[in-house]
């Protein structure tokens, strides 16, 4: 059984008589430890699909099943608790709570789970080490560069050891060098920790590191299913 199963999902927005249908019977499976990228034109419904899998939005119809849990059927409260334990979410910008330090930001998801204080400390330290920012634990978001802020955001997404980490254009706001760092980091987390990733991006280079690249077009999902190394070579040419 796949880790993530999206089955015939439809998402519609109604504005009076006008109906927008960014997702039209979309189905998708993501396996454990997979790294999947999702591309598509602006407004094609990428974020919408990602948010459904992350459990912060609900489909008009269809089913989303993660690790055997039909999350579309959970109550609002249950869903929140489920997210805390099983989903890591990396935003394009402004991931962090400005009044909290890097350490406190990364610790947030753990506060919602039954971890002791010392266990929280250990996990946060490990997560910050994984993103190479152990020395910035006491810094506030305004004292960090855009790339560093993004890495703290990634540390927070992985700290509770979630089933899936979703990222919506995680490098969309970064320069080439920072983008490179982030991509390396994501790849390393995927290979070393086995973290499952779904990354929405406009950037072919970011998509290039994925094992599987998907594309949304006119509400339908095109599964290109090409291996990562082939994609990288094509991108390099």
């Amino acid at each position: 059984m796949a880790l993530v199963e999206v089955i015939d999902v439809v998402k519609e927005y109604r504005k009076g008589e006008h109906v927008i249908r960014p997702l039209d019977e979309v189905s998708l499976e993501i396996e454990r430890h997979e790294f999947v990228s999702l591309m598509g034109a602006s407004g094609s419904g990428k974020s919408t699909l990602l948010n459904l899998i992350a459990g912060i939005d609900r489909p008009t119809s269809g089913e989303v099943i993660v690790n055997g849990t039909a999350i579309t059927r959970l109550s609002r409260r249950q869903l929140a608790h489920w997210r805390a334990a099983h989903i890591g979410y990396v935003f394009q910008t402004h991931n962090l709570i400005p009044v909290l330090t890097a350490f406190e930001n990364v610790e947030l998801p753990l506060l919602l789970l039954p971890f002791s204080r010392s266990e929280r400390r250990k996990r946060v330290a490990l997560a910050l080490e994984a993103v190479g920012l152990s020395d910035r634990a006491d810094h506030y978001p305004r004292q960090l560069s855009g790339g560093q802020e993004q890495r703290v955001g990634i540390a927070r997404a992985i700290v509770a050891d979630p089933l899936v980490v979703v990222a919506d254009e995680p490098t969309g706001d970064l320069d080439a060098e920072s983008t490179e760092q982030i991509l390396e980091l994501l790849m390393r987390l995927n290979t070393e920790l086995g973290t499952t990733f779904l990354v929405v991006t406009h950037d072919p280079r970011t998509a290039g590191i994925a094992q599987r690249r998907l594309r949304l077009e006119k509400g339908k999902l095109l599964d290109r299913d090409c291996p990562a190394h082939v994609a990288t070579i094509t991108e390099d040419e």
Partner: protein
Amino acid sequence: MRFLRYVLKSLWGHRTRSLLTVGGAAVSLFVFTFVGGVRGGMDQISSGWNERSLIVFQIHRFCPETSRLPEAYGKTIAALPGVADVLPMRVFMNNCGATLDLIVLHGVPPQKLRAFRDLSLVAGSFSEFETRRDAALVGRTVADRRRLRVGDKFTVGELTVTVAGVFSASNPAVENTIYTPLEFLQYGRGLNSVGMVTQFEVKVADGADPVAVARAIDESFRADRVQTDTRAKGVFESFAVGDLAELVGLAGYLGYACIVLVLTLVSSTTMMTVQDRAREYAVLQTIGISWDGVFRLVLAESAVLGGLGGALGVTAAAAVLNWGGLSLATEGVSVAFSASGGLVAIGLTVAMVIGLAAGVFPAWQAARSDIVEALRSS
């Protein structure tokens, strides 16, 4: 609550706004508590006396300085049916009318005092009071406020008295009184009051109707040059402070207005916060905080603002009321302001409740907002 740190840091993050709100809440609750203390003082006056005591005053006179009754009236009154006992009293004060620094001396026959007042001595002795010409028995409240001890001398107008004892009494209004021997206030230099008293206090005998006795007293002096006006003691004193009571009653509305003020102040600050931080709450919810968790976070912020401000205001007001030595007096009746434990508890509870109540609407707004929409719109 594991998120307390976040709540406090958020408030500290907007410290100007937070401090202004806390300040506003503090001022409002200061006023609320202060008004409560003043009202409490007023209430003591009318509630402390039993209905079986009457006060005989000169008719159409309101200031004790101007009420002058022949001391001999006392004998006539004592002989009336239904009268158990009569206490002649001369009231002397340094000022007539409403003032914040009024000292009133109540001159009474020393041997009679204990029959009319339930006093117990905290310091000094009754025999000293009964023998010494310029002795003064000082109520505990006055003694505390003016830092008077046994043996101290103090001056009121042209008179200087010596503290012979400090007493406590079951009636708080009595504890705010100073007694001296009646003769001292009659024979003093320039007093011109030999054989004259300000009023009589009449104890009505068991089974007699106080209203009928009052009428009989006034009736028996109807034909005399100096006529009398007799009322129940509580009524008399309430009447004396009537204008004040009206003012204080108005001030009571001020107290309630203050509560509404804090409510809107804390509420609008919290509302601003919620609107500013719509994205932040969406991020927190994405991380896994449930809608009711967000509700509680917002509520906690407003409760801290209201509670902290309230605690400051109530404490300040209690300090001023209890140690500021404030009392207000008019027409010889003095009202002591004090903040009782009950009043402080009420103030703090009101502050907490306001803080929570002020947060409800903003918290509800934050909790029901759609995550995706909030993320999208910023």
